[in-house]
């Protein structure tokens, strides 16, 4: 291992995501990438905090990404969700 992180003889040389930010999802949540200069790549994980109500045609939240921002959207017919923005 030339550089990076080695733990107990195991080299973490790729893709150990950390939690950049987290919270309860509102209608629109925007993250500005420039606030996290050490992070090259972002992923968003949504955690439904209750049972899905398919009878009401519930939909999941989704996110979109540009070079500058990540926008997380909770449609009006989406249930309650948490979000975790992971980065590396």
């Amino acid at each position, binding site marked *: 291992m030339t550089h*990076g992180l080695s733990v107990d003889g195991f080299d973490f040389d790729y893709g150990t995501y950390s939690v950049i930010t987290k919270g309860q999802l509102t209608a629109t949540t925007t993250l500005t990438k420039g606030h996290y200069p050490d992070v090259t790549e972002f992923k968003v994980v949504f955690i439904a905090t209750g049972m899905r109500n398919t009878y009401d045609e519930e939909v999941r939240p989704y996110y979109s990404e540009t070079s500058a921002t990540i926008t997380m959207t909770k449609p009006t017919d989406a249930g309650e969700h948490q979000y975790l923005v992971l980065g590396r």
Partner: protein
Amino acid sequence: MSYGIKSFGLDGYLNLHSDYSSIVYAGEMTKNAEPAQPTYAGEHAITITPQMKRGNYGQGWTIQYTIDLDVDYMIPFYRPAFDGQKIAIMDIINEGATWVVNLLYDGYSFQYPAVYAFAPLTELPSVQLNDYGIAVYDANSDIVFTDNMRPLKVDDTVLVQHDTTIRTTGKGSCGNDDSCHVDFNPDNPTTVTSNTANTKNKLYHIVPSAYGGLAFKNSWSGTLHCGVLGWGDRPVQWDYYSWSSFRGVVSHPRGASDHVTDYLGDFSGALHQYVQGDCGVSGLVGALIGIAGALLTGGLSLTMGSFIGGALGGFALAELTRPSQPSLKAYEEDETFDTANPVTMLITDGSYYGIPEHVDIDLIDLVTWEYEKTLNPWAGGNWTHWATYSILQNDGSYLPADSFIFYDSEMVAAGMGFNGTSVEVGSTIYFRGDLVSTSPTGTQYQWYYYKVGKI
């Protein structure tokens, strides 16, 4: 970052930063209730056998896992129980210090996947540190890294999106028949490719968004002549209705880097009603037709609560200690929902966290073989075997015919064909074992007696 520590990997990506918490393996979730395969069991219900659930309705098993973990955020990863298993995490529920995951899978009931919980290190109520090594804290004095807990190492991320069509081919048809079932099996998988190959030890996190349903309706009303001994006509009406509700699932064939999206049923139902009036009395059908007629004209939606309550008694209340809800909406017509946006799937490997290597369950290894064929049961004997027979033809050859299974002197199954090797009866699977004896040749029927096993 004005102080602290950060580390980057060989790929240039950040893998440790004292401002950001690592995500760590927090333990394996445990099965909280026996797997369930719920079907509608209300008025006019037609029996759907376990074989039909899989063969006609494309239905999987719903199961629930829990873990006592006092954190506000948790990411579940699953590991398939066998190559190509279809799986969907349906719900992730936080109940205080307990997390609940409802999951849908295919295969046999006991082939449920393993589920592992990961959580931000800062969320864990207590963290054991090594007497040596490294521990990193953030500005709030929350621990964000320790060499005693390996952080989540993601091998790849993939965007997964389900097709809007569950089944492309016809379903078949049923009429005035309370034993008929059409074919709802999904047949429209799609494939997405990642950069890492699927192995026995890969773990996957994805909560597919897509769901939907397929439905079939048929009905007829009219009059039938009462015949020479009757008088006039008899009013008649029948309704047939069946459906299967589906969730989007994903499978991960080993040895390849493909991930296959598909659908798997989580709830199905079929009902049939036939009513007729008396000869010579017209206009009676409207009063006689009850539930089935109402269902077909929208009454189902309006009475969802009471209608489904009975059907789900064993599903939501008894077998699962915490409520779960099958996809109930989409069974009045063919529909899919929430297929517009892709969902991110994370892939990691259990070996990074010391999770023991996965061993597939071979069904045959679970079987205990039995064989008894002394006196026949009607003479007080005990029969436990799998018997097949063939029939003597005019040319002296034998034509393979059919088979029976006797277990503890009860005939538990028949009609598997001459070459059948397994059959499901209720929640039991019977297997044909080694050949033990045959009947003499030259008689009308040639019998073959095999060991039989069940699980």
